[in-house]
């Protein structure tokens, strides 16, 4: 009945992977979803253009927290350019449940944040 809130997604919400902050990160970026006030801070360690480690500190809904959690597992080990190429569909496939139009921004907040972080890193 309630497709969006499947057990697996809720499990990521309750125990998000790679949650918190990395000490002495290569880059740190804070982003918000002005529509709902969701917040995410991403910290990442980048070495030889590879994302060695990253953490999301999320304050938000199940969709935004779970998508950050699932995304974090995928991004580790990718090059910065690979991360920049990830598109919205990648995250939606990862989340794997139907996302309504009003909730797209929640699902995509973490991807936007890590991509902005990497752009900031590259500009350094």
């Amino acid at each position, binding site marked *: 009945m*309630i497709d*969006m809130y499947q057990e697996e997604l*809720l499990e990521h919400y309750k125990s998000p992977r790679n949650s918190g902050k990395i000490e002495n990160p290569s880059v740190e970026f804070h982003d918000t979803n002005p529509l*709902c*006030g*969701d917040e995410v801070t991403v910290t990442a360690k980048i070495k030889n253009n590879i994302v060695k480690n990253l953490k999301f500190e999320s*304050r938000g*809904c*199940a969709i935004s927290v779970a998508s950050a959690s699932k995304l974090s597992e995928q991004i580790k080990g990718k090059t910065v350019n690979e991360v920049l190429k990830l598109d919205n569909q990648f995250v939606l496939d990862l989340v794997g449940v139907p996302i309504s139009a009003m909730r797209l921004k*929640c699902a995509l907040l973490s991807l936007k944040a890590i991509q902005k972080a990497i752009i900031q890193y590259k500009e350094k």
Partner: protein
Amino acid sequence: MKQLLDLKSDFPILSQKVNGKQLIYLDNSATSQKPQKVIDSITEYYSKYNSNVHRAIHKLGEQATLKYEEAHEKVANFINASKEEIIFTRNTTESINLLSHSLQISKKHNIIVTEMEHHSNLVPWQQICKETGAELRFIPIDKDGKLNLKKIPINNNTRVVSVAHVSNVLGTINPIKELSKMVHQYNALFVVDGAQSVPHMKVDVKDLNMDFLAFSGHKMLGPTGIGVLYGKKELLKKLHPFLTGGGMISDVKKDVSEWADIPNKFEAGTPNIEGAIALGAAVDYLENIDMDEINKNVKDLVSYLMKRLLELDNISIYGPENGDRTALVSFNLLDIHPHDVAEILDKEGVAIRAGHMCAKPLMDILGVNAVCRASPYFYNTKEDIDHLIKSLKKVQEVFAK
């Protein structure tokens, strides 16, 4: 209260199903639904007498002008003002922007708002203070979500005190009469944001001694895009125009113009004619029920809503106790984000609002990013609230998995 229960059938939108469930609309603080009579007034305007108002010398123009003028009069009577004291704007936000730009704020002034304001009664003042160097001050709120009247930072340099009549997050009914007295002792101007009060209660601008009152048509059965700014005649006459151009002049030369009388001075350009006429129809509908009856009905529903919400485990409710509040109840379920609550309620046919409610400074004070808000209007019933509570229990079950 019983006689009001039948009114749902006046609102065609309410009979539909969403997501296969009967729609229970509890997002009235965002916008109310519209009765058939209001919808009809719009189609009637466009199918029978659509024409631009004021200078038309033909039958349709005359009819449109008379109806547009009549709308001013209906709204004026509704709040115990006179016709020329009613300025039609787009909404509460525009009404307050008009004021903030027309009041000639200067560096020596301070402006006072409260910590519970909607962005519409905060950001325009914030901006005008930035532009002029005036100081923005706040009346703090206490733990119960009421204004702390002992800490009003007013002095002889206070130009404006602008306060929500009813908080769109806390539901608090602010003591307007008391505030008005204090503000006028300092010769400051008293502005009231009535967006959440005018739909629910008899607001008498004379009795409450307001200098200005801003509100929106769409929260009181009217269409979107029509709002009101009431101002005392003698004050409006002194105020500078906000927008200039067609319709607001009495004479124009190549290098200089003279302004029309109030309210036209503040209604530049072709106005929202059908919006004004439909707002007039909305006022007729409300007065036909009686505002005191509506007030009592909504307060009863809010107090029932509070009582039922308190039966739930792990819930935080924001704002004052029953009696000092109306219109809405904001709450949070422990460890469940308001967006998730609203999404699951939607699957059950129940529409509420979730988010920061356009009151971010207040969210910071409450220590949350967002809240859930359920806001009944007179056409809602206790059964609607029962359905909401049942659905909230489902939300908690989903997250307990």
